[in-house]
């Protein structure tokens, strides 16, 4: 990574009384990078976010955010935007007055806070609702308003805990596209906590998977998937008359560890391969032999598969 670091977290620990919620977590986030922090419930993600946003004091380790150490929390808060996991809203305020208020808390004059608020509401599709009371907003609208609030000070680092919670698929897509653009065009770093692994896979430059308070894997999505050491299973569907020829070709492929013909589904062959194998390697001999391929479904090479494998979820054991 060549970009300057905006978040550096070294051996960070968080205790709640005698319970250790975060145990020696280290990672870094570069300028303009979207970093995904994943993990099952109680993995320690929210505690890491709360420590980095100075809401709770870490029990050990240290970190810098936007170049400021956590020991100077007031300075850190100037440069961060935060959307907490369980964010509440004042129901009697309008969306615009709410954003103006938060803009003022970052030292913006009221007119500037208002104009920034209006621009953000427009960008996140809430422009026509600016003067409506928040109490009348749907959950998805509130979530988008929360993202607007987190962006009101044009933060150097944006911390988002489940930002697409309550959003419909179109809203999720718009929000993620907006965040991706903000990161790439404005150089804003984003630390994103989410349970939606597909969205993380789509937008995050790098990720860390947490479990039991520690990081069990980190890197790019491909690196994490590879580190999970999972073999891939590819379900191929070929022309009905070409199954036998396809099986012969696949058996000749040294990376293929197991083959199975699905009797229940005509033309379908299940191919197990070693970890890290490019799917193209098993498709090439079939294409060279002019065998028509109707569909390809790769399992075990997705972030979700790696996540379940690394965090010991029920899916793995089953």
């Amino acid at each position, binding site marked *: 990574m060549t970009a300057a670091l905006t978040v550096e977290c070294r051996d960070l620990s968080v205790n709640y009384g005698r319970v250790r919620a975060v145990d020696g977590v280290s990672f870094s986030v570069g300028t303009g990078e979207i970093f995904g922090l994943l993990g099952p419930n109680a993995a320690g993600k929210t*505690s890491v976010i709360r420590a980095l946003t100075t809401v*709770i004091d870490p029990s050990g380790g240290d970190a810098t955010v936007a170049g400021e150490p956590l020991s100077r929390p007031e300075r850190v808060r100037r440069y961060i935007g*935060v959307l907490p996991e369980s964010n509440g809203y004042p129901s009697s305020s309008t969306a615009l007055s709410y954003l103006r208020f938060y803009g*003022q*808390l970052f030292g913006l004059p009221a007119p500037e806070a208002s104009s920034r608020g209006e621009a953000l509401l427009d960008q996140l599709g809430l422009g026509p609702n600016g003067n409506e009371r928040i109490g009348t907003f749907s959950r998805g609208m509130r979530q988008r308003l929360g993202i607007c609030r987190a962006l009101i000070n044009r933060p150097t680092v944006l911390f988002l805990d489940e930002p697409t919670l309550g959003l419909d698929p179109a809203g999720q897509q718009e929000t993620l596209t907006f965040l991706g653009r903000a990161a790439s065009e404005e150089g804003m770093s984003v630390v994103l906590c989410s349970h939606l692994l597909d969205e993380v896979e789509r937008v995050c430059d790098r990720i860390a998977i947490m479990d039991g308070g520690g990081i069990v894997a980190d890197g790019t999505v491909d690196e994490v998937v590879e580190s999970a050491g999972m073999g891939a299973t590819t379900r191929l569907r070929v022309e009905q008359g070409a199954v036998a020829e396809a099986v012969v070709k696949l058996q000749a492929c040294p990376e293929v560890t197991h083959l199975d013909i699905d009797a229940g589904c005509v033309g379908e062959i299940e191919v197990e391969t070693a970890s890290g194998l490019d799917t193209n390697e098993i498709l090439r001999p079939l294409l060279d032999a002019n065998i028509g391929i109707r569909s390809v479904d790769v399992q075990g090479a997705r972030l979700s598969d790696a996540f379940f494998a690394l965090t010991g979820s029920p899916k793995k054991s089953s």
Partner: protein
Amino acid sequence: MTTLPNSGSDGSLHGLWRAIASQELRELWFSAKGLAVLFGYTLLMSVMSYIAASEASLNLLDARESVGIIVRVTIAFGTLAAMVVSADVISGERERGTLEALLVTPVSRRDIVIGKLLAASTIWVAVVVVSVPYVLVLARGPGVMADALLVTVIAGSLVAAALTALGLAISAISFSNRVSLATSFAVLLLLAAPSQLPAVTASGVLGSILIKANPVSAGLSLANAVLVDQKSWGSQWQLLISPSVGAVILTLVAIALSRRLELGGAR
């Protein structure tokens, strides 16, 4: 990068208590909470004033006593309302999930507490404003209008300031809104209890100390002494000591506790 004015040496932003207070005022008065309190108080005052005026006109109750009752009810109700509102401002925000967003802004914790304290105090101001016509009408007969208003504004405001600060301090250290409200209510009842002591006990040394040392009973006793017993302000000045000291000390305690303003709650 945003230019941030008013920044202190620690990097936090100061002078933003006005923005906090404005937002709190909007939440208090544009929602049903503040108006419901005032509506309830107006209803109570109307009923009590009617009863007091009727009994005074039938000579069942001394006219001065009816003024004393109304002023004491104003102080007791206004103080209770302000304390309940202030007891909710931090612990309530914790429960509603709005505190975390506030804590991650660079505004100083002290400004957060000062802004919230000022906004909660407006409940008392509103109660006083509503009480003025009732007090004036009842006090016109016995000719104690000035004394009645002075007791309400001076003694009442000191007691209200002390207990609003106490409510906020309790709210800051309570991680449950229910605990904060229950504790505040219990403390208010405890403080008001000495004012209900029988006259014989109250005039004793211990009773006198109990009444003068606590702001609530001292304020209520001042109303009784000046308006009902016709004692001069000069002879009763000691009854203003504990409300004054209480207002200053408890406000300072609430501001000092702002350093411990934490999110608390679950992981």
